[in-house]
């Protein structure tokens, strides 16, 4: 063992010497503004409509900055934040990067440059800002809206003897509908994929407005959360009860939300699903499979004194990482919410965009129903959580699904994680 002593001692010495130097630089060392380039990271375009939208954004930006070369770097989404974090720490981060609103952006605001004053002139034009705000500052403009509408399959409702045009409006009606579907059909009531623990966040944000009073809801979004309150525990209890009552497909903990559970719904193996409003698993994609059988329903009333609201907020937007290119970055962000570009994309790609003056030009009834609920919508409950708490919620959601953690224990762990 003696022969290991010298190298180890040298290593420890080197570590201590390096430690005294501090860590990696926090500010990306992009090239100076004068060199005429803007490096932008995103996770690529999902289809032709998204590519066309990006081209329009580039054209709008080029009109203002004809001499600036925009270098768009597309990274794989499943590794996006890991790669971005590593690049920033190494000092090779981009000038701007695309972020999901809510937890993903808010956990990185120390790396971003606020653009509150710079975007003040477009504030009234767009919806969904809270997902990009933190500590009273704005860090990006929402391009699209992201939310958790509940979709249902009218054909399965009809097969079970339920009224396809009048979906449940209260929790008791929903429970009765699930009992009926279980006894009358061979499909599950809800499609659920919980392999990454995402199921419980969809459940919480999907049904939240029917459980929490408006005051509790607003306080939750503002960071005043009491996990051990009656209604917070009720969310957890309902989650555990619905699993125990057999609302979901078998093996939800080993079924991925994207795309396995949505495939179950699209393929007619589940009567309902808490889906999304843009990007993926949204009304336009489901319509391709289900056509006129696709239905949209609002959350159901669980408690008295609640006001049902569509859970929806800003989905994605670009944040400025390189303060030296703040002006260019702001102009890029403004280009991404250009009214014409968004309007064209909303038609071609089926996105519900953040610009509230744009009408969604589609004859798909579910989409029109979603848009009609936008004025009364509320931000998502789960994206207000910090990264630690959200990850803990994912894990507890899985453990509650298999009965390994009690509701009280889960509530106390979540309360402790938020200090």
């Amino acid at each position, binding site marked *: 063992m003696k022969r290991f002593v010298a190298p180890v001692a040298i*290593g420890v010495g*080197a*570590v201590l010497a*390096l*430690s*005294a*130097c*501090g*860590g*990696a*630089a*926090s500010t990306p060392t992009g090239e100076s503004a004068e060199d005429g380039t803007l490096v932008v990271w995103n996770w690529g375009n999902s289809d032709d409509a998204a590519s066309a939208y990006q081209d329009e954004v580039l054209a709008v930006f080029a009109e203002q900055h004809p001499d600036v070369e925009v270098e768009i770097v597309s990274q794989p989404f499943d590794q996006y*934040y*890991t790669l971005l*974090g*590593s690049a920033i*720490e190494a000092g090779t981060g981009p000038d701007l990067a695309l972020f999901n609103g809510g937890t993903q952006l808010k*956990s*990185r605001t*120390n*790396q971003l440059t606020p653009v509150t004053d710079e975007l003040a002139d477009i504030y009234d034009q767009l919806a969904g800002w809270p997902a990009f705000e933190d500590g009273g500052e704005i860090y990006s403009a929402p391009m699209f809206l992201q939310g958790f509408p509940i979709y249902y399959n009218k054909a399965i409702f009809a097969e079970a003897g339920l009224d396809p045009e009048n979906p449940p409006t209260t929790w008791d009606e929903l429970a009765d509908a699930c009992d009926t579907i279980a006894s009358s059909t061979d499909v599950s009531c809800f499609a659920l994929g919980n*392999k*990454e*623990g995402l199921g419980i966040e969809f459940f919480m944000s999907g049904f939240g407005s029917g459980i929490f009073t408006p005051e509790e809801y607003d306080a939750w979004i503002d960071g005043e959360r009491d996990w051990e309150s009656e209604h917070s525990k009720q969310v957890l209890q309902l989650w555990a009860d619905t699993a125990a009552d057999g609302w979901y*497909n*078998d*093996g*939800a*903990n*080993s*079924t*991925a939300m994207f795309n396995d559970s949505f495939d179950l719904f699209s393929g007619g193996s589940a009567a309902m699903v808490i889906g999304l409003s843009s990007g993926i698993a949204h009304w336009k994609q489901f319509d391709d499979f289900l056509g006129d059988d696709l239905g949209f329903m609002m959350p159901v009333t669980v408690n008295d004194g609640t006001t049902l609201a569509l859970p929806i907020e800003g989905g994605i937007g670009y944040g400025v990482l390189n303060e030296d290119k703040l002006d260019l970055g702001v102009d890029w962000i403004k280009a991404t919410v250009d009214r014409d570009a968004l309007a064209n994309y909303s038609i071609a790609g089926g996105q519900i965009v953040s610009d509230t003056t744009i009408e969604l030009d589609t004859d798909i009834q579910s989409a029109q129903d979603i848009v009609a609920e936008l004025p009364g919508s509320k931000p998502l409950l789960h994206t207000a959580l910090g*990264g*630690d708490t959200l*990850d803990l919620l*994912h*894990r*507890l959601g*899985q*453990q509650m*699904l*298999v009965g*390994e*953690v009690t509701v009280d224990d889960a509530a106390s762990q979540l309360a402790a994680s938020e200090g």
Partner: protein
Amino acid sequence: MTAPTSTRAVVLSDPSPGWPRRTPKVPRRKRKITSETVTPYLLVLPVLLILLVFRIYPLLLGINFSFTGDQELNGVFVGFDNYLFLLQDERFQASARNVLVVLLFVPLEVLVAGLLATFIFIKVPGHKFYRSVYFLPVVLSPIIIGAIFNIVLGANGPLNAMAESVGLPTVDYLGQTMTALPSVLTVHIWATFGMALVIFLAGFSTLDQQLLDAAKIDGANFPQTIWHVIIPGLSQTIQFVFVTTTIGMLTGLFGLLYTMTAGGPGAASYLPEFLIWKLNGEARPALASAASVFLLLIVLVIGLIQIRVLRRATKES
């Protein structure tokens, strides 16, 4: 020069056999710097430089980074805070516990590879076919293997359908705490034992055939031949396979974990490597660096212990 008068004098005057017991009377000969003495160092210099630049320096940077904070404390020296935080973190504790589970599966992989390699070595019928078949999964991507076994082991998958058809209970192998990690490890063994098998086969080719023949003449049966001839003869190979399999399991399970369980349910199938990736994705790279250092230490300590224990165990007394 006076001729030596005794054997002792001859030994003392000869610098080679007694080194370093060199007599003070004989001055140490200075080695001249010639092209012959310098060339070997020049030849290894590129490798040393590559090791230093691409291995040692990043390693030291990573260790250094683990002593700094995340987010608002980015770049600030925080001492052992990250390590103390990890020790109290549920996911880290689960990862550490799961390392022990992984270690239980290492002998299984070595045993499977060793036994099958022995069968191929003694040329069971169809051994050439089996050799190719056993090695085939090694060339598949872990992501593809994970996707395949996601389907096979799914709650409504073919394995459960077969079990149901013969009246056995169905199990959500990847969604239950007790079965998630063992399922992934079993698939990992299936996917990787081919490499260990090839190493074993290479080891077999170095076995002394005369010893095997002698054992046969002495009337040793198959288990006795394995225990008294093959295992001692393959001691170096077994050590190598053990250590590389352990390192492979500790650092090469990410792809399967990512696709099959995503660390769940809860933290039931977390391993250090997966935790490092999760922490980095949660914008806590310094904490991830601390977890990386822990993983490095785990691999180092386990590797050294294994080499020591196996060196003794595989030597015939």
